[in-house]
């Protein structure tokens, strides 16, 4: 990782004439620059260390992990930019497909209706998270930690250690998790690209995005200027929950099965991806592309370490160290002041 030498610390020195030399400078000042360099370096290192890094199996493993973590991270990023956290997304990542599976496999409800119903349940969870946080003015950290345990208990109650399996080519399953022809990629990567594009646009180009930044940046002035800060927060809770629920359904569709262990620690992985991608822990700053890069980085490190012979779950140690180092360097370099 080269985040420590992040060129973003230099303040913008915009001049009236934008010469060619400034184009490179402008690129280097983008928030995504540091994480991109980090990803490229990581990929380069594993390419050198392992002959199998670019094998189809490996690409499948990395992209499917990155896709689902990335889609969850997009919602988490929207929420973090508006100044809130959601610790319940990991449990919701299992709860939503479990509800979906029970509805259409066990209860034989139309699969589309069942999917819509499951996503509505996810939206309901987000509504509760947002309402509890904004109405009672308690930290979202606590509100969603409570939701984490509530959902964990419900997951336990619904399938308690069993696995829900789906057989046959259900159109919904094909849509969410099928393989892309002969390519080593699956549908989730397409959805990741789709949602990254949608939320990149929403965040940077719409009033809703502007208000999301303003709400997390400094809610006082934003409210004084007429921004509906509570409504923005509540909506982002719903966005975050629905994306986490949908990503969980994608993993179900891709694996053809779901257990209550699905999505374990995803709430923390999603926050990690967002933070590695440059999203501020204090709200008001962050990018969608950065979080997607952060998710790719997490997945690359996870699979890459296995490839070069590190013990199976050692990667979390590495991710933990990386996270702390990146946040320390960002804080020290004053990066969390935020920028356009």
């Amino acid at each position: 990782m080269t985040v420590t030498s992040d060129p973003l610390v230099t303040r913008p020195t915009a001049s009236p004439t934008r010469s060619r030399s400034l184009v490179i400078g402008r690129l280097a000042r983008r928030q995504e620059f540091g994480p991109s360099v980090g990803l490229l370096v990581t990929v380069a290192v594993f390419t050198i260390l392992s002959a199998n890094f670019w094998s189809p199996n490996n690409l499948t493993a990395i992209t499917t992990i990155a896709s689902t973590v990335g889609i969850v991270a997009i919602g988490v990023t929207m929420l973090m930019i508006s100044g809130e956290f959601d610790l319940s997304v990991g449990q919701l990542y299992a709860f939503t497909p479990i509800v979906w599976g029970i509805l259409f496999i066990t209860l034989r409800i139309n699969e589309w209706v069942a999917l819509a119903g499951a996503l509505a349940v996810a939206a309901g969870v987000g509504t509760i998270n947002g309402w509890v946080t904004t109405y009672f003015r308690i930290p979202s950290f606590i509100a969603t930690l409570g939701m984490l345990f509530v959902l964990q208990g419900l997951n336990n109650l619904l399938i308690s250690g069993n696995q829900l399996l789906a057989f046959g080519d259900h159109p919904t399953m094909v849509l969410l998790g099928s393989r892309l022809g002969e390519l080593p990629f699956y549908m989730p990567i397409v959805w990741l690209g789709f949602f990254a594009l949608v939320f990149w646009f929403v965040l940077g180009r719409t009033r809703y995005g502007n208000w999301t930044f303003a709400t997390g940046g400094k809610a006082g002035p934003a409210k004084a200027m007429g921004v509906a800060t509570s409504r923005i927060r509540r909506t982002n809770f719903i966005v975050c929950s629905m994306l986490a629920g949908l990503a969980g359904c994608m993993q179900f569709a891709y694996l053809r099965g779901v257990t209550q262990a699905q999505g374990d620690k995803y709430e923390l992985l999603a926050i990690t991806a967002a933070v590695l991608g440059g999203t501020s822990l204090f709200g008001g700053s962050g990018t969608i592309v950065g979080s997607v890069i952060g998710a790719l980085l997490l997945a690359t490190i996870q699979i890459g370490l296995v490839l070069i012979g590190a013990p199976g779950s050692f990667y979390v140690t590495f991710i933990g160290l990386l996270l702390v180092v990146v946040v320390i360097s960002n804080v020290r370099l004053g990066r969390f002041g935020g920028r356009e």
Partner: protein
Amino acid sequence: MTSTTLPPVHDVDRSLEPLFDLRGVNHKYGRNHVIFDVDLAVWPGEVVALVGDNGAGKSTLLKIFAGYQPPTSGTMRFQGQEVRFASPAAARDLGIEAVYQDLAIVDQLSLWRNFYLGKELVRRVGPLSILRRTAMREACEAALADLGLTRIRSADEAAFALSGGERQSVAITRAMHFGAKLLLLDEPTAALSVRETRNVLADIRKAADRGLGVLYIDHNMVHVLPVADRIVLLELGRVVRVIDRGEVDAEELADLVAASRDHDEVSSRRPTRRN
């Protein structure tokens, strides 16, 4: 930008209807009577300074002006019409803009995003309100240049790079741009350098010269002297003195300033402006 000597007296036509007019205003917080029979009017094109110690009732009056709370008794008129604000938003709708010391700007947003925050120019496409970025960027730069804020380089700059004085100036420009008629400024030069203070005061003067009424609230007369047309001294909730720039002789003014400056050096560590 401005001279460091006392500025000339400005002509304010007080035969016209005042912009905002408080008559016999009293305010109580529970049993605590904080404002006593205050009459206070601001005419268009006039900078009125409301000066008083902590606890004199400045903030309470500001909140009444800005619509945060109605007075316990007394009348408020805006452009001749009696008003009673249900909320600050109601006051803003009439063109009363309050600029608070720390509440003006969201650091993480660029200048033009700050400028248009809450009043974005958008193009509606289905459920989306898409920002008209170029239009806002250009209009923001034009508005800032119009006020002479040439020290601001680009509307794309993030607001956290702005100094305290530039923030105040941007907030004042924004209020003018969106059709404010009455500006309420709460200690706009507190904690600013001498040079920055001068810039902010010049912007306040420009706003008044364009016909806005300005109510400038400060704890120290030295801060408001270079720009105020009238200075209203408030003590323990009562107006104790109204100083009209044209009616007070230089010697008396100097005495008042000296008293105020001594007081300032004893009671606070805010930067003092030297005249």
